[in-house]
């Protein structure tokens, strides 16, 4: 086993040396980080004559009365917001004062997403696509956070972050292609709808298992930190997925391994039918952050500026200080969980209407815009018409396109085609040739 002094040397001196040569960190934070990381080894030599605790596992004072700490769930971590529900700025110093062009872009992306959602939801109902998940009510969390990142920052998502991809410029054609699993799908038709991915836009392909992306994001952030090219990683997940073991793993790893990572939790009130009071008993997800030694904040997810401000600052500091940040964006899932769900089975129409009508990210931003005369009724009408037309064009194009060739059933299992798979591929084609009238070959590319 390495000598304790060896480890001390590594943590104390080497760590400090690495920090200095990296050259990006504020001096005050330098000491702070070194202190935190080397927590085990910065303690004074063991001295039982002192009254201070000597335990390696915690830095704390003794207490001689028996007291259990009461978790505070009545008045939890406060919710940061910039606008009130009517879109008025509350504290002018918090207005990010984005340009009109930027704000209009926010609005147009949120509404375009909303329009695409409506059309694709309907197309599932009509049997044109197999499945869909809408983003109603959470558009603010997507656009606000995406806007605060660099295009090179890597995004790990769960499945309800299409607005992030839309903000980065993923074409409507590509959204549709994936949902239709047609020959244009970048994913080669292998996954259910809404499992988007884009290498160019640094959006890692979605997978269905929940929370698996959380420790992966920590690993990616660690690799990105070593590259030292001013990149961050953001990891989205819902409050339900935050109950998975992978979430605990990801939080703990990112903190102990000092990763430039933003954890963005969309707390939208439901995990399918399970409300938050059956998901957790503590003060939401933000309260877990300090348990991992992680900087944490709770924001109003329906306030696109609050989301923007928090993400922007978290990103800046995550990269500068190599530590993870946890943002819990409070919001509401206005739509059903998916096209396989009818949420009237477990919540009231009144509850849904409240959020749709009284606290919606799109209307709040619209009020902000109209208050500055940046958006008129005419603008709204013509944008609605234009965005619907764009979506319908992409939709019709995707509908007509053939599906990918069944050859693609067998590729990409490994980087190379294996002899075993090649045999199976040939066997599949022989069979299909023989029984071709039972297989829908005319729907597929050759």
């Amino acid at each position, binding site marked *: 086993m390495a000598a304790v002094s060896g480890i001390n040397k590594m943590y104390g001196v080497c760590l400090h040396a690495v920090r200095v040569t990296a050259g990006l960190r504020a001096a005050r934070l330098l000491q702070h980080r070194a202190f935190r990381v080397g927590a085990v080894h910065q303690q004074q030599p063991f001295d039982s004559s002192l009254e201070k605790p000597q335990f390696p596992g915690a830095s704390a004072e003794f207490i001689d009365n028996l007291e259990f700490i009461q978790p505070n769930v009545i008045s939890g971590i406060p919710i940061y917001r910039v606008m009130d529900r009517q879109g008025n700025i509350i504290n002018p110093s918090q207005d990010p004062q984005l340009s009109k062009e930027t704000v209009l872009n926010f609005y147009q992306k949120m509404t375009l997403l909303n329009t695409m959602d409506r059309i694709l939801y309907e197309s599932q109902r009509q049997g044109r696509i197999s499945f869909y998940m809408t983003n109603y009510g959470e558009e603010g969390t997507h656009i606000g956070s995406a806007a605060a990142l660099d295009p090179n920052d890597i995004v790990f998502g769960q499945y309800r972050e299409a607005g992030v991809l839309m903000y980065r410029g993923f074409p409507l054609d590509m959204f549709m292609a994936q949902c239709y699993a047609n020959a244009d799908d970048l994913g080669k038709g292998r996954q259910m709808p809404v499992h988007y991915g884009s290498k160019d836009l640094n959006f890692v*392909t979605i997978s269905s298992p929940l929370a698996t992306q959380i420790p*992966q994001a920590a*690993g*990616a952030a660690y690799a990105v930190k070593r590259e030292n090219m001013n990149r961050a990683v953001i990891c989205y997940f819902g409050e339900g997925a935050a109950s998975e073991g992978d979430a605990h*793993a*990801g939080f703990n790893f990112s903190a102990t*391994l000092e990763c430039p990572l933003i954890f963005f939790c969309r707390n939208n009130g439901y995990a399918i039918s399970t409300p938050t009071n059956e998901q957790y008993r503590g003060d939401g997800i933000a309260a877990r952050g300090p348990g991992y030694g992680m900087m944490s904040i709770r924001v109003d997810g329906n306030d696109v500026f609050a989301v923007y401000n928090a993400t922007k600052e978290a990103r800046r500091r995550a990269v500068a200080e190599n530590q993870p940040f946890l943002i819990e964006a409070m919001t509401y899932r206005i739509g059903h969980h998916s096209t396989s769900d009818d949420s009237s089975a477990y919540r009231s129409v009144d509850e849904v209407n409240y959020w749709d009508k009284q606290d919606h990210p799109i209307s709040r931003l619209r009020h902000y815009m109209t208050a500055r005369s940046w958006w008129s009724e005419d603008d709204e009408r013509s944008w609605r018409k234009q965005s619907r037309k764009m979506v319908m064009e992409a939709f019709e194009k995707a509908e007509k396109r053939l599906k990918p060739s069944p050859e693609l059933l067998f590729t990409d299992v490994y*980087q190379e085609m294996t002899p075993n798979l090649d045999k199976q591929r040939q066997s599949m084609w022989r069979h299909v040739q023989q029984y071709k009238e039972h297989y829908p070959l005319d729907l597929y590319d050759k």
Partner: protein
Amino acid sequence: MAAAARFFTRGAHSKLSLVAVGGGGGAHCSFGAALLNASPTCNSRTKTQRRHAAHFTFQPDPVPTQYGPTQKMNLFQSITSALDNTLAADPTAVIFGEDVAFGGVFRCTVGLRDKYGKDRVFNTPLCEQGIVGFGIGAAVAGATAIAEIQFADYIYPAFDQIVNEAAKYRYRSGNLFDCGNLTIRAPWGCVGHGSLYHSQSPEAFFAHCPGIKVVIPRSPVQAKGLLLSCIADQNPCIFFEPKILYRAAVEQVPMESYTIPLSQAEVLEEGSDVTLVAWGTQIHVLREVANMAQEKLGVSCEVIDLQTILPWDVDTVCKSVVKTGRLLISHEAPITGGFASEISSTVQEECFLNLEAPISRVCGYDTPFPHIFEPFYIPDKWKCFEAIKKMINF
């Protein structure tokens, strides 16, 4: 044999051995030793107290000459050498897992942190699903990620990440993303006293998972070459290291990098009457069985080391069975659903008319891996020998 016995009774540098020291006497146990020596039954060990010799003799391969100068290394040192070569050549390579920083519970990473830095060789929290998930993410971001799971017995929390994520990353993304840069290493197989949770051979669970590769070496030279192949391979790989061989297996191992191809089974000995297939430690059992069969039965055995479990080399095994007409497959893992069943099933499909006897599987029983009953549980040379006899006399 004596050397193996000595290894066996002292135990590997395992979790168990370290824990055994504990108790009230503090670090040096002199109090405990004094008590023990004072006991009247202490001086002679009774039958029940004597521990058994190892069930195999490690058979080193001839010194390889084609890869440059060699050095005497045991299995864990050959792993260290492979990792050292990797860290030296690939600046993105990182090694992580529980206790790897000080050198690892099996000493596979000794010296690497000092040599390459604490950002490249580091401990993670105690969480296998986190280790593998983290490894996947690092690989996706372009780093060469080498994850260590402390014992194969503890890999199961990472099963979801391996099967649902790592194995499917490339396929599900249409080749936009992949974690081919990920290699997972874990100590594997029986060790004499490992019992339920330090002896498992879980390869069959992973054999059922398209998209990953599963590799098991039989020796130090094989281990280094196969591990380097896994690291270079652009698919996520699981590399199981037979822990009983960590110290017991010593060979002359090339110091430079070299690779041994994956998915190519190796015919170690040619024969005409029976094909024997195994991997890892069991190869050494089968080599001895082949000698016994020749001496006592005049039966000529062809011994094949499968090496890669997934994707496995069907052609080499079938070619051999076409020649011999008889197949025996042996592994420590329980027989039902063990990887021998896959080999058996494929071979009977491909070579049905060549078979002179039913395919024989000599494996562990369908029980958890027992502690004190290990000598009865394992597929030892006598069981394999008996199985050959039955096949010859079919």
